[in-house]
């Protein structure tokens, strides 16, 4: 089938098998391997991508479901050679250990900050409840999200 959608801000038309898993389409057909496969059943959050700016599992999405919508993968966060604020705060806070959960974790955080630029600590916890970090570096991850939110607000106030 023919689908039309936006991939990391660019309009795209593609001939696809609508029932193919979005995760396989991204990694194998488009070579966008930033999106990771962990459990394959919506438990771990490693494959999190943004559909119309909302976090969803690429492993539980069929390509046909992209029709007319906007998809953001981790590759889409870097703008003009500069990492997204969240990517920078993740690096600064040591929130990346093995790195496997990082793309999904960062995109869940991105969705949160787009919806709610000033989240409470509890809201940060809830937003990443579906993202498992097996290195268990949650404290640094929460600190990185906190810093991204706070620094964006401080800059806006200046």
């Amino acid at each position: 089938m023919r689908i039309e959608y936006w991939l990391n801000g660019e309009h795209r038309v593609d001939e696809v098998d609508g029932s193919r898993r979005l995760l396989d389409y991204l990694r194998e057909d488009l070579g966008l391997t930033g999106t990771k496969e962990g459990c394959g059943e919506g438990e771990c959050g490693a494959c999190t991508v943004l559909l119309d700016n909302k976090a969803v599992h690429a492993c539980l999405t069929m390509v046909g479901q992209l029709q007319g919508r906007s998809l953001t993968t981790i590759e889409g966060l870097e703008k003009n050679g500069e990492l997204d604020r969240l990517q920078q705060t993740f690096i600064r806070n040591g929130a990346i250990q093995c790195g496997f959960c990082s793309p999904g974790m960062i995109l869940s955080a991105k969705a949160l900050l787009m919806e709610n630029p000033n989240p409470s600590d509890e809201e940060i916890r809830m937003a990443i409840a579906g993202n498992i970090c097996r290195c268990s570096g949650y404290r640094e991850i929460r600190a990185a999200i906190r810093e991204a939110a706070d620094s964006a607000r401080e800059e806006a106030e200046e």
Partner: protein
Amino acid sequence: MREPRWEYLQPADREELFAAMAQMTEDSVFLAGGTDLLCEIREAKIKIDRIVSLGLLKEFSGIRLEGDGIRIGSMATHGEIAADPSVRRYLRALAEACAHVGSKQIRNKGTIGGNLMNASPAGDMIPCFFLLHGKAEILSSDGTTRFAEAGEFYRGGGAPAMERNEVLAAVHFPVVPERDSFFVKLGSRTEVTIAQISACMSAKKKDGMFEDVEFYLGSVDRTPLPVPEAAAILGGSLGTVEERNRLSELLSKRIQEIQAKRKRPPRLKIRESERHYKERAVKGVVYDLLDGFDRP
């Protein structure tokens, strides 16, 4: 492009939907959010020849106040329902249930229609569907619509009573402004958890006292368990410790009876240890529910 494994149809209006439905066989499935279907496909649990996605049908989406009720499109996501101001105001139990389904990722994609159609004993929408007197709006491929109340919808005790030429378009709930409701569940962890017991209750409050209490337990049987005795226990009171304990004991007995009265092997497998756990844990659920009900 690789050879597709299945035919994938994505109707955008009624005409295309009816044409797609005409091609469906007993091995064809509807795709709502996909959060359960893709797991089943992965586990190779089901044989599929054709997938009909309902994602582009506008009349299946959205939440709106209609007369003295609320229509929730079957494709409305848990996240949309939990955030909707009318649902939060008039159908608080449903908003609570939706707010705690799975993770953020699941709530952004899973739908009320998918939850009701899958009919998992642990499906959190189902006790609310009974409690809040929901009606399923069922569209047939001949263009006619019929409505089914929860008891009729689940009359078989498992999968919804629907024909192959029918599809769930929406769920309607009456608005009763003087009524409030609440839902809680107990799982193995606080977030991203599957209910081992859920409970929901709806009541009016007169002079601070409960009136016309309705009560259901979920996840303990194939379909939600009505608890009509709750009306007498809680009615005309505030839910004192003594009444909470009495209700807990009653629920504990009802859970014991479910197992005892079964003549055939149960379709919902509950191990002996789980049953013992649920009999005791239900007391905490009753306390959580009544505490939650009192919070604005």
